[in-house]
């Protein structure tokens, strides 16, 4: 990582630091040739360390049979099953759910209209109908039921926590730290341990989803409470409000739209996790995707993935519309219309309980199979056209870039790598970078999966460089051009919500099983978020600043490089950081397409009982890598900023 960060930072920093970085790297490479192969801490695929064995042995010490966890599981289970009975599964001695498709569409569209506007209501109805036409009604409803259950439960936990963190500085600091960790933790890592506590099935899936989805809601609720204008709070206090009154009548209502953004992100996270949770028997679309993968059926996997994207887009647009709703509430006319609408919904529900055509989605028109065929054809076409070229690209990148980098990281003694990384962190980020880096490295050695960590690190760094380069290019383009933005954004949304499993098969077809395939998958997964952040950052550059630059006759490139990028520095730092974390969160998925190393260790620990401890340690190692890279980039960014500020004052 050192190498990459330095390359990035060098351009923007005074030359002296770049010289130090360069010297460090040269020393490292020189030392590598001398010390190659010493103390590399190799651990074979089936080998384990005492720590791993200890973890494996103690896995049964916790969970299962514990009254407390059982009670939680049963309560959650009842809740989920109830929701499933209502919208997806045959229930109460009837061959259909309590509410058939017509009723569900009516309720969903009505809610979208009541909380959002009529446009999203139309979108909701169209989206749900499309999913039904895809032949995936029941699976979609299972996914929806699970998502709704997980989101409601996460909010129940997250919003009070968020309020607490919003009101108390100390709680805020602790929460930020814990949430940072939670968000780097790869989902696979806690999926397996969770089954120990909560067994398998919908309840465990819901709980896993809840854990994954709660952080954004906590974060944004705290942020919202903190950004209420102090004058409004003072005004309330000056009139003699109690703390409770201030919270209920001022802070919470004024935080509404930001909290809704948090809820939106929670929903998105929940939806993606519900898909992954298919691995522990969560019903729904995730199952369809996983099953299709077993027979390499790209078409069916894509069809199910598309259904997830459609549901995600509907949920996203509805919550966004709900958040953007102005304070002005209903006019009398709207109230009357809402009342009429409610009646219509009741009628629809009654129909969906009475008549078969309204209860079970008609299967005459099946768009799904056609989508599947087209998707398969497209994949085959791409494979046939690009097939030869892609292997060459893979080999060139692997031999030219990845292998040397990986060789340097895995072939050097662990203490040499650690020393170089800490030194680089110190140069780039001062003690704020060096101390966390040192701690993380020591812990990495302790996990016993040092070599695998270095392999993963090499791929992660390469992937992040590509993600940042592509994200910057696309982001600047979209940030400067509205039309590009409106076209690119839905694609990015889809890229972010499409379960990564779906594009594994096409990638395997193009690149075979290799580390490169994993890098490519990670890039596809992480580019949307980086692009979005960069685009937003570029757009946030004050118009006057850009106009000033134009008025002195800057070329487009000068405006970008000398004005927009430097001013959007914060956003770009965030983009690099998020890109890194997204790439890391794909490490385990990468393990499924031949990346090996930590991703494979985690997956193996999930699947084989004797490797459980090693899998857990590997999961921890991923988190440690994440924390280390995160701290170094943050510290480096902060230092650059300080430097700039000083410069400004002078």
């Amino acid at each position, binding site marked *: 990582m050192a190498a990459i960060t330095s390359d990035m930072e060098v351009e923007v920093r005074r030359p002296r630091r770049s010289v130090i970085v360069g010297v460090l790297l040269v020393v490292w490479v020189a030392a590598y040739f001398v010390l190659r192969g010493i103390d590399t801490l190799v651990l074979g695929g089936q080998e384990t360390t005492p720590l791993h064995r200890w973890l494996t042995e103690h896995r049964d010490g916790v969970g299962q049979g514990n009254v407390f966890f059982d009670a939680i599981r049963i309560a959650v289970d009842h809740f989920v099953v109830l929701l499933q009975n209502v919208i997806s599964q045959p229930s109460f001695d009837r061959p259909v759910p309590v509410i058939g498709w017509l009723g569900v569409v009516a309720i969903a569209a009505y809610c979208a209209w009541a909380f959002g506007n009529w446009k999203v209501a139309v979108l909701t109805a169209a989206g749900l109908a499309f999913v039904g036409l895809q032949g995936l009604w029941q699976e979609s409803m299972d996914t929806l039921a699970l998502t709704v259950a997980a989101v409601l439960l996460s909010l129940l936990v997250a919003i009070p926590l968020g309020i607490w963190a919003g009101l108390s500085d100390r709680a805020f600091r602790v929460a930020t730290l814990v949430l940072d960790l939670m968000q780097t933790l790869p989902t696979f890592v806690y999926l397996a341990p969770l089954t120990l506590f909560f067994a398998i099935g919908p309840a465990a899936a819901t709980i896993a989803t809840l854990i994954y989805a709660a952080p954004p809601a906590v974060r944004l609720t705290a942020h919202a409470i903190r950004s209420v204008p102090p004058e*409004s709070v*003072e005004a*309330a*206090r*000056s009139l003699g*409000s109690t703390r409770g009154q201030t919270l209920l009548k001022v802070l919470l209502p004024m935080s509404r739209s930001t909290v809704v953004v948090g809820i939106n992100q929670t929903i998105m996270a929940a939806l993606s996790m519900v898909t992954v949770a298919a691995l522990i028997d969560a019903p729904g679309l995730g199952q369809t995707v996983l099953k299709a993968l077993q027979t390499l059926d790209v078409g069916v996997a894509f069809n199910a993935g598309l259904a997830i994207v459609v549901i995600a887009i509907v949920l996203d647009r509805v919550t966004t519309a709900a958040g953007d709703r102005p304070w002005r509430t209903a006019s009398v006319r709207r109230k009357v219309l809402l009342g009429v609408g409610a009646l219509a919904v009741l009628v629809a529900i009654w129909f969906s309980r009475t008549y078969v055509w309204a209860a079970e989605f008609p299967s005459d028109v099946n768009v799904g199979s056609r989508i599947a065929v087209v998707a398969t054809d497209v994949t085959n076409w791409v494979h046939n056209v690009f097939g030869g070229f892609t292997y060459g690209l893979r080999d060139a990148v692997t031999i030219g870039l990845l292998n040397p980098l990986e060789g340097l990281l895995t072939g050097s003694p662990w203490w040499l790598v650690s020393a170089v990384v800490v030194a680089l962190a110190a140069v780039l980020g001062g003690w704020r970078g060096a101390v966390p880096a040192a701690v993380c490295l020591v812990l990495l050695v302790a996990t016993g999966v040092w070599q695998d960590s270095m392999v993963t690190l090499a791929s992660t760094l390469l992937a992040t460089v590509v993600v940042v380069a592509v994200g910057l290019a696309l982001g600047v383009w979209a940030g400067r051009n509205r039309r590009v933005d409106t076209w690119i954004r839905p694609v990015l949304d889809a890229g972010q919500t499409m379960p990564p499993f779906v594009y594994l098969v096409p990638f395997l077809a193009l690149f075979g099983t290799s580390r490169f395939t994993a890098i490519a998958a990670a890039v596809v997964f992480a580019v949307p978020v980086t692009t979005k952040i960069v685009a937003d950052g570029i757009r946030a550059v004050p118009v006057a600043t850009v106009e000033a630059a134009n008025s002195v006759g800057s070329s487009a490139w000068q405006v970008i490089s000398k004005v927009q990028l430097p001013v959007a520095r914060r956003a770009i730092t965030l983009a690099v950081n998020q890109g890194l974390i997204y790439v890391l969160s794909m490490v385990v998925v990468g393990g499924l397409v031949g990346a090996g190393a930590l991703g494979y260790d985690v997956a193996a620990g999930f699947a084989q009982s004797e490797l459980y401890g090693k899998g857990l340690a590997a999961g921890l190692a991923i988190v440690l890598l994440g924390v280390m890279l995160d701290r170094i980039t943050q510290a480096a960014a902060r230092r650059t900023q300080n430097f700039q500020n000083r410069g400004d004052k002078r």
Partner: protein
Amino acid sequence: MTAQLEYPDLQDSDALLSVQGLWKVFGPKAQRVPRRPELAALDRTDLYAKTGCTAAVRDLSFDVAPGEVFVVMGLSGSGKSTLVRCLTRLIEPTAGRLVFEGEDLRAADEKRLRALRRSKFSMVFQHFGLLPHRKVIDNVSYGLEIRGESKPDRRRRAQEVIDLVGLSGNEHLYPEQLSGGMQQRVGLARALANDPDVLLFDEPFSALDPLIRREMQTEVVRLHREVGKTMVFITHDLSEALKLGDRILLMRDGAAVQLGTGDELVGAPADDYVREFVRDVQRADVLTLRWIARRPRDGEPLDGPELGPDVLVREATRLVLEADRPVKVVSNGTLLGVIGDEEILAVVADN
């Protein structure tokens, strides 16, 4: 007049609100600054260098009489906004006494303080501090709502003050639908709704356009005439201070520089800082004849027109210039002095 500050008697029982030796220090271990004379004596930079503390309010004492409009003026950073927040302990003072109607405010507990804020004080904020999710009428009745009044009561009362501040017809709009001036009327109405004894204004008009600002100032003058509330008014605008204030306290770096009426500040600046501050004022609009009358020279004719000492120079100009002999300034039959063309011209031409 001398440059020395003259505080009214601290034990003045007529005062509605009495502030004595008030300090507000921000920073680590702030308590020690007012206690230790050697720290209390340090100026801003030295204090920060030595203790890491900043004194926003330094040893202030003044009384506010019932029905008075008391203006606190100073540049930004002079501590005036902190001062007004200390008065109702929105910011907890570091040291000093606050006496309101004979009650020691600093000894009041949370509950008593809330009760006082609900009925005795109200505040109007620079950026209005409105609640965007509530309609105008619900913003105005907020204070009544939290003290538990019934809905019809607070609706009625809110409607009264809305009419009073000239917001009629806008009751059911949301703040974001109103212009800045209208929003501040909502802030004003909200403050009045509680029927408080003291209204505190924290630079209420500085975020408004000049025209609107003047209109709002006139509005405050009108309100003061109609409801006769005691007002503490914070501003950085001298003309606003002169227009509204019965008395003005000029602050600098947290400390008081001069306390007096508008014409005292203009006519007898306490030091160069005040002189600089009031230099651009239309003196003719502020000064009264009292400030420019001189002793009659020997042999001057003393049969000119007579005027009172509190007549503004601007109002007297025409008369003085048209008279062919000096104008006499007479108070209760006593001749205070005379004014000729040159005295008038010195003031008027000064601008």
